[in-house]
């Protein structure tokens, strides 16, 4: 029988030391003494700092697992703020009895994803709780990124103006639908994978001309509809989206039709919205398409007025309506 996590793994004693020494440190490439804080060097840029907790169910899903997600999610929060992600922390809350092999697989995915994103996991924590006090494993990651002065405007969208163009990097909703399907045991003719991915390299291609990118946000919980409405309210602008321009995988469309979900409200973990200057849109799209995670980049709409805060959807059948934020809990624990 494979080794299990026990309460003593979280006790701070010998077993805890062993867990950290054997299972975390070598994979995360941590070196130097095990101190209470990682001491990091930073140039004189602004620092972006974010944190997120991951409680997804199921832990393993087509296209990733909770570990990969915990790295991508935090890397993306930093990236869409215009920052270059550098360091992550990783804190684990593990239920007694959790399978050590599964923990290893999760930690290995975190290490792989951190390496390909070019970030380092430099500090962490492990707590083990009694059976039934948490659902197998929860992970928190916090991240630090360096933000150069010419990208400070990106997270607030302060330079957005009428005529700006809206770009997304691929079809939204794959993550939410993959999780739902995994939970319900649904299968599709064309297998669907979560879009879970670190977008920092893609973002670097986009901000080559920092002043051309006016706003970025990743399309996580609440999906495109939420991000657009938050932006409209934050900047007091009217946003018009063309439904027919928003790409969707057939499986996502199909499941949404059957279950009555709005695909524009579904979460992704590797998709972003960017608002860019109209005259730079083509060049940005071209550069995005050179990155693996930007191949599906398309224009989906525009900032049509700088006055009223609202989001208008030109439906693919020719009608027009407001695109509102989703309300209530559509699908719990998808990240």
């Amino acid at each position, binding site marked *: 029988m494979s080794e299990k996590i026990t309460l003593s793994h979280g006790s701070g004693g010998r077993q805890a030391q062993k867990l950290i020494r054997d299972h975390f440190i070598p994979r995360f490439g941590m070196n130097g003494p095990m101190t209470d804080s990682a001491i990091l060097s930073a140039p004189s840029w602004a620092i972006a700092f974010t944190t997120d907790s991951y409680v997804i169910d199921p832990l393993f899903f087509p296209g990733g697992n909770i570990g990969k997600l915990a790295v991508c999610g935090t890397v993306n929060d930093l990236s869409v703020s215009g920052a270059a992600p550098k360091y992550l922390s990783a804190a684990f809350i593990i239920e007694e009895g959790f399978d050590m092999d599964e923990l290893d697989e999760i930690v290995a995915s975190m290490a792989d994803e951190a390496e390909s994103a070019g970030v380092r996991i430099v500090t962490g924590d492990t707590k083990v709780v009694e059976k039934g006090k948490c659902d197998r494993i929860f992970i928190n990651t916090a991240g630090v990124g360096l933000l150069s002065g010419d990208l400070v405007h990106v997270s607030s969208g302060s330079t957005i103006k009428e005529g700006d163009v809206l770009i997304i990097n691929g079809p939204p909703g794959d993550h939410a639908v993959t999780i739902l399907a995994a939970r*319900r045991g649904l299968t599709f003719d064309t297998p669907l994978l979560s879009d879970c991915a670190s977008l920092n390299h893609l973002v670097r291609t986009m901000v080559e001309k920092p002043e051309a990118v006016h706003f970025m946000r990743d399309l996580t919980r609440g999906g495109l509809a939420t991000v657009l409405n938050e932006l409209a309210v934050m900047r007091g602008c009217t946003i018009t989206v063309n439904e027919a321009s928003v790409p969707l995988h057939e499986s996502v469309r199909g499941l949404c039709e059957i*279950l009555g979900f709005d695909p524009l409200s579904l979460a992704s973990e590797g998709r972003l919205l960017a608002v860019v200057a109209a005259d730079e849109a083509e060049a940005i799209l071209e550069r995005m398409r050179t990155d693996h995670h930007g191949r599906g980049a398309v224009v989906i709409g525009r900032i049509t007025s700088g006055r009223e805060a609202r989001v208008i*959807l030109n439906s*693919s*059948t020719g*009608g027009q*309506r407001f695109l509102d934020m989703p309300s*209530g809990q559509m699908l719990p624990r998808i990240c």
Partner: protein
Amino acid sequence: MKYVDEYRNERHVAGLAEMIKREVTREYSFMEVCGGHTAAIHRFGIPSLLPGEVKLLSGPGCPVCVTPARYIDTLVALASHMDITIALFGDLIRVPGTLISPGEAKASGADIRIVLSAHEALDLARSDPQRKVVFAAIGFETTAPGTALTLMQAEKDLVRNFYVLNAHKVMPPAMEMILRQGARIDGFICPGHVAVITGAAAFDFIPQNYGLACAVTGFEPADIMLAVLMLIRQVNLGKPRVEIEYARAVSAGGNTMAGRYMREVFEPEDAEWRGLGILESGGLKIRECYRRFDAGIVFPVDIPEPEADITCICGDILRGVSKPSDCPLFASACTPDHPQGACMVSAEGSCHSFFKYCCHE
């Protein structure tokens, strides 16, 4: 996607809009009585495609909206029993009862699970024989056959821990009530999915007794536009009848097998519809031979009669007399985040649809 893309084709829809515009000679009011239609009409922006003379009104077609608060109170009371699991459709979870919603009961520790079908609830019961699983059976002719078939299966397999708290309703009596109360409409966009089961003939009494136009309609934009065109033509010709727009799914006679299942398990009874009151033969009752599955009988609960909320005008909205925006609570005290009436809770509720897609107009 087959059966979807061709019915959402912008050119087809624009063509129908053009034909409607040409044939309009007066003002028209048509009522849809299916929540699926209400949601589709707003989702696809159908009102923006119709000339100003054509008004669409939402009737009592969302099963959640017409479920009385008392039913929710009963569900919540049952959920407080330690050995009972409540299995319900996701739409019900946030519906406010007199005191709390099932969602709030769940947060306080009640075992309440969301299922996609009656059969999934039966599977829950089979997987945990120690627990008593109560399925919240709501809906019209569309969901009632599923409940019926599941009860027949439970009876056959001798499943002893599965129950149904039944609030199934049937649609034609509600349409008749609306007409008897003198609704000022010219015709009905008849519910396509209900008609798949009942057959289009179930609506024959409307042109025959009330002289109103009827089109049994599908749920895509081209379906709804074509149905509106059919209704306008019937009105213009003065020859009301039941036309089947949704011919790819609906026949005159309906699904006879589903009808047989329904009759095997249920019989008609007078039923309370939220906002409309007691409707004669407006609901379905579990027959004597399936009574041991009837949670309403097996687990009697003492629920105080809920006080009527006089400020919420759900009833007038469901009858098409008032628009959601006429309600004093709409978009102020009553929003999708804090629903007061059931019409605001369900995604297919008229207030919810109106709030989501048009309230800023």
